[in-house]
């Protein structure tokens, strides 16, 4: 069945708090920690928005994003990129690869919720 948000993030306590705040904002949430498994999870859960960390084990978030944009069925899926490193260069890479939003860690919870809400609206249009 379709969910609202899929979170791909490998740090357990960040994943837990993201799961909590997005749930609390009223959305259904699925989580995944392995970069290689993200595309499969997207096909399975058909999320409306993906929250994607850059530093994932086995396959980087950028690589996953590139795969999403290259896939005929998934290419319009709204993606929010989270990153904790190399701010300026990462932002450029994310833009080039077609990320919809970009948030650097450490963030305020409200920033993430607002960004996801905006992407949800975009998804509906």
């Amino acid at each position: 069945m379709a969910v609202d948000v899929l979170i791909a993030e490998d740090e357990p306590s960040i994943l837990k708090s993201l799961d909590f705040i997005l749930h609390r904002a009223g959305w259904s949430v699925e989580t995944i920690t392995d970069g290689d498994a993200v595309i499969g999870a997207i096909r399975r859960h058909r999320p409306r928005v993906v929250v994607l960390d850059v530093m994932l084990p086995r396959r980087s978030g950028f690589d996953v994003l590139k795969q999403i944009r290259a896939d005929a069925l998934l290419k319009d899926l709204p993606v929010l990129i989270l990153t904790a490193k190399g701010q300026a260069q990462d932002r450029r890479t994310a833009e080039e690869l077609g990320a919809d939003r970009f948030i650097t860690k450490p963030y305020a919870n409200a920033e993430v919720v607002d960004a996801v809400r905006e992407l949800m609206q975009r998804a509906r249009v």
Partner: protein
Amino acid sequence: MRAPIGLRVASRRHALGISQAALARRAGISASYLNLIERNKRHVGGSLLLRLAAELGVEVGELSGDSEHRLIAEVEETLADPVLAGTTPPSAHELVAQQPAAAAALVQLHRAYLGATASADDYADRLRSDPLLAQLLHQILSGITAVRSNAEILEEVPDLDEAERGRFVADITAEMRRLSDVARSLIAQFDVDARARRFSPMRELDDLIFERNNYFAALEDAGEALRAEIEAAGPFGEAALTARLADGFGVGVRRTPEREADAEGFPRPYHFDPARRVMSFHAGATLATRQFQLARLYGELSAADVLEREVAGAQLSSAVSQRLTYRALGSYLAGAVVFPYARFLGDAEACRYDVEALRQAYGASFEQVAHRLVTLRKPGAEGLPFGFLRSDPAGRLTKHFPLPGLPLPSAGHACPRWVIYGAFGATGSVQRQIVQFADGSRYLFVARAQARPGGGFTDRAVPTSIMLACDVLQADRTVYGAGLELGDSRHDVPVGPSCRLCLRRDCTDRQEEAYMAGGVPAAVRAPLVPRRFESGADD
């Protein structure tokens, strides 16, 4: 502006206590003409200026003001530095005329400032590209993200039940504990870095090898004893080594299709697991590698006391230096086992240091043989003195043993004309050249590049190039001198140590400007149409 030569002549003459008439007589001119010169009423130059300078015991430049001109130019450059923008600089001419010592000090300070700025840039580059630092930074940012996010939930969500609250608090506590550890290793890292800058461990090892002339008698003795033990198990080679390791130390040897990672996660072509007592070799490891590394393991297991004594006697300042030295001496010992000194020296002399022939005779690699050749320094039984260098295809020098007199760079890169680089273009075959340095010293360089065989198509290693260097006077004792005009220097390849340290202005292969102490380096890269470039806003 005409330099006041007359003033300088007069003041120098006064300082020496010579009369105008006396100086005029010695310089072969009339006293009244000298009087006009000293009052700057007559131009002076050419041979007369030379004679005056000689009589006054000074350089012509001092009288003509050329040395001053250089200083003025340097002061102008200093005053034009953007860091002084917005200030009202004094006139460089006046400063040099009135306070030459202060002007020189100003220039010296400016040079030191430029040097410091350059090294600050280097450090900034290093910080940006340091993988360990990047990893620690990532961990810190992740930790802060988790703590902040959890803390916000605790603060902003009023209706959390006890269990949920407890979970978030526990997460924060755990993250904080992890952050403390990360902070501690970050601090330790900076601490290590600061110490490493004071004493480079590689430098200490180099100094030790240099001081001992790359010959370690105790290791040679131990090597001979070990060789005898191994040969008791059969003819020297992989089989006998394997048998001795099994009998003496319960160590098994196996081959693996994949590279095995060591404790640090580094995928090695060979690897010893002390807990399981297994030595593994990756499928691509050659017979030469297996033989040498088994000898090295046998040496480390049987002669640890000898290695420990050598390392302890070397008075090394850090644990890293001790580790590097122990490792280097372990390899030395393996060399002594695989190539017993007296026999190897005899064979080397007999085949005139033909490295390829010695490889065949000892089942060894080019690098192993070349490495052993530079250790033939036993007092009273010396072989030919060789220098040794190893380079990767990026030109970086990764290993070196110096030859007295020959300026082998210890790191960075060498002269692009050296055959150590040319050898990459003919991988697998031995290349040679006779080189001449700017001071006239001549050497025979012999190099061979080789790619380590991989374990399969996808397992390809970058090639390395090995070079031996010997004085051209001894090149006739080697097979590599044959057919070369050793006595005729007209066809030598003109080389230098590296561009930065090379004085050859006429070199067509120069890649970088030379570093000249005190002088302004000549421009290597310039537009086709010559033009002057002013630094800063000149008026």
